[in-house]
Structure formats: structure tokens, C-alpha cells
């Protein structure tokens, strides 16, 4: 019984010490991930609808994680301390038909703008690559 108690104690001591390899690891602190933009449920719904419509003729993914979303960005925006506002970036993966995607973007841009906090973003910037082309198309909507 005493041996079992000691073994259990030993396991507990190790379980307290092990996380310190992470906690006191300077590399881990250096590599901590910057907060990502997390879309609201309504915005996600709009983007999903847009994606579904585009995907009737294409096969694309829409990403918005690459946006300024840190707590201090919004705080500075609230307190009017920002020198310039960031754009809200919407990245669409490779597309085949430029005109079709443009039409959909024009249709959905006002809906997206309605769902994001427009006060803290300057414009919507849509980017996508056309299949077979080296260039990345992008346009800005105020």
C-alpha cells in the first residue's frame, strides 16, 4: 500500500514538472500564434452562401482568417488611435472564370460589408488566382 502511494506521488510530481518543459521553453513563447480573425455566425453564413453559389460552376475555398483581429486593433479603433484602417481581405482560391466570380463578388460584397464591423475596416479586398495565369486578381470595394 505504501509503495503504491509512493508511486502515485512520483507520478504526480512528474505531472507537475512536465508542463514546465513547455512553459519555460523560450521557443514556444517566440512561436505563439497571433490571434486569427474569427468570423461571426452571420458572416460565416453569408460566405458559405457565396461559396455555394460560386461552386455551382467552380471549386473554390474562401478564407478570411488573414485579417487584423487583435484585441488592441479594435481597442485602438474604438479610441480613434489608428493611423490607418486595415482592409478586410477575402481570399478566394483558384478560379476558372473571372467574370462569373466577379459577378458573385459584386452581389455579395454589400452583404459581407453589412456583417463585418465596417467602422474598423477601410475596404473589402477580394483576391483570387485565375487558373493557368501567373497573376493574382484582386479588387477593392469601398
Amino acid at each position: 500500500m505504501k509503495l503504491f502511494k509512493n508511486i502515485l506521488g512520483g507520478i504526480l510530481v512528474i505531472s507537475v514538472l512536465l508542463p514546465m518543459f513547455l512553459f519555460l521553453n523560450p521557443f514556444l513563447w517566440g512561436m505563439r500564434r497571433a490571434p486569427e480573425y474569427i468570423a461571426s455566425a452571420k458572416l460565416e453564413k453569408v460566405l458559405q452562401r457565396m461559396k455555394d453559389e460560386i461552386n455551382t460552376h467552380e471549386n473554390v475555398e474562401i478564407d478570411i482568417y488573414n485579417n487584423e483581429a487583435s484585441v488592441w486593433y479594435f481597442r485602438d479603433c474604438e479610441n480613434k488611435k489608428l493611423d490607418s484602417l486595415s482592409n478586410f481581405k477575402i481570399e478566394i482560391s483558384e478560379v476558372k472564370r473571372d467574370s462569373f466570380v466577379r459577378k458573385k463578388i459584386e452581389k455579395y460584397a454589400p452583404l459581407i460589408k453589412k456583417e463585418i464591423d465596417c467602422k474598423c475596416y477601410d475596404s473589402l479586398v477580394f483576391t483570387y488566382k485565375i487558373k493557368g495565369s501567373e497573376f493574382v486578381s484582386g479588387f477593392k470595394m469601398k
Partner: protein
Amino acid sequence: MKKGFLILDSFLKFQSIVYLFIIIWAVLIANLQNQFTVWKYIEKINKILFFIYFLIGLVSVIILIIQILKIYFSSDNSMKRKVWIVANILLYYGVLSAVFYLSAQFRF
């Protein structure tokens, strides 16, 4: 063997409350970010709290090990304390995660 204050029931209770407070603070910051941004000193407060919580994380290692040694490697047979220490170790994991999260909430 004279019992140290570190394994008194009241100290164990205090320890759990401190850990819970740190975890709840991080959860609040994570879930109510927009409300917190309204208060302009929140970033500074988070910075100070981060360093305090970081130190609590470090001190906890020593405290928990002393507590384990005093309870599991001695004649103390209190089941309540044994379970409480395990609960505190679980809360300690929560504290370390909360400290990591808080470090992302201010500019270095």
C-alpha cells in the same frame, strides 16, 4: 512530523480559488473580447496580470511538489487532501494554458 501550512485545508481551498480566478479571467477575455476592448486600460491590466500569473505558475510548481511530498510520502492518510491535490494539479494545467492565452492579449 509538524504539518506545514501548505497542506492545511484552508490553504488548499485558497490555492484552488486563485487558480479558478486565473482561469475564469482568461475565459472572460477570450469570450467577451469586444466588451473588454471598451475599457481602455484592459491591455495594461492584462500585461500586469500576465506577469503575476506567470509567477504564480512558477511558484505553483514548488508548492505542488512540497504538497505532494508532504501528503503522498508521509504518514498523512487524509483522502480528502489527496483528492484535492489532484484537483489542484488539474487546475494548475488550466492556469498554464490561461497564462499562454493572456500572453497573446497584449503587445510585448
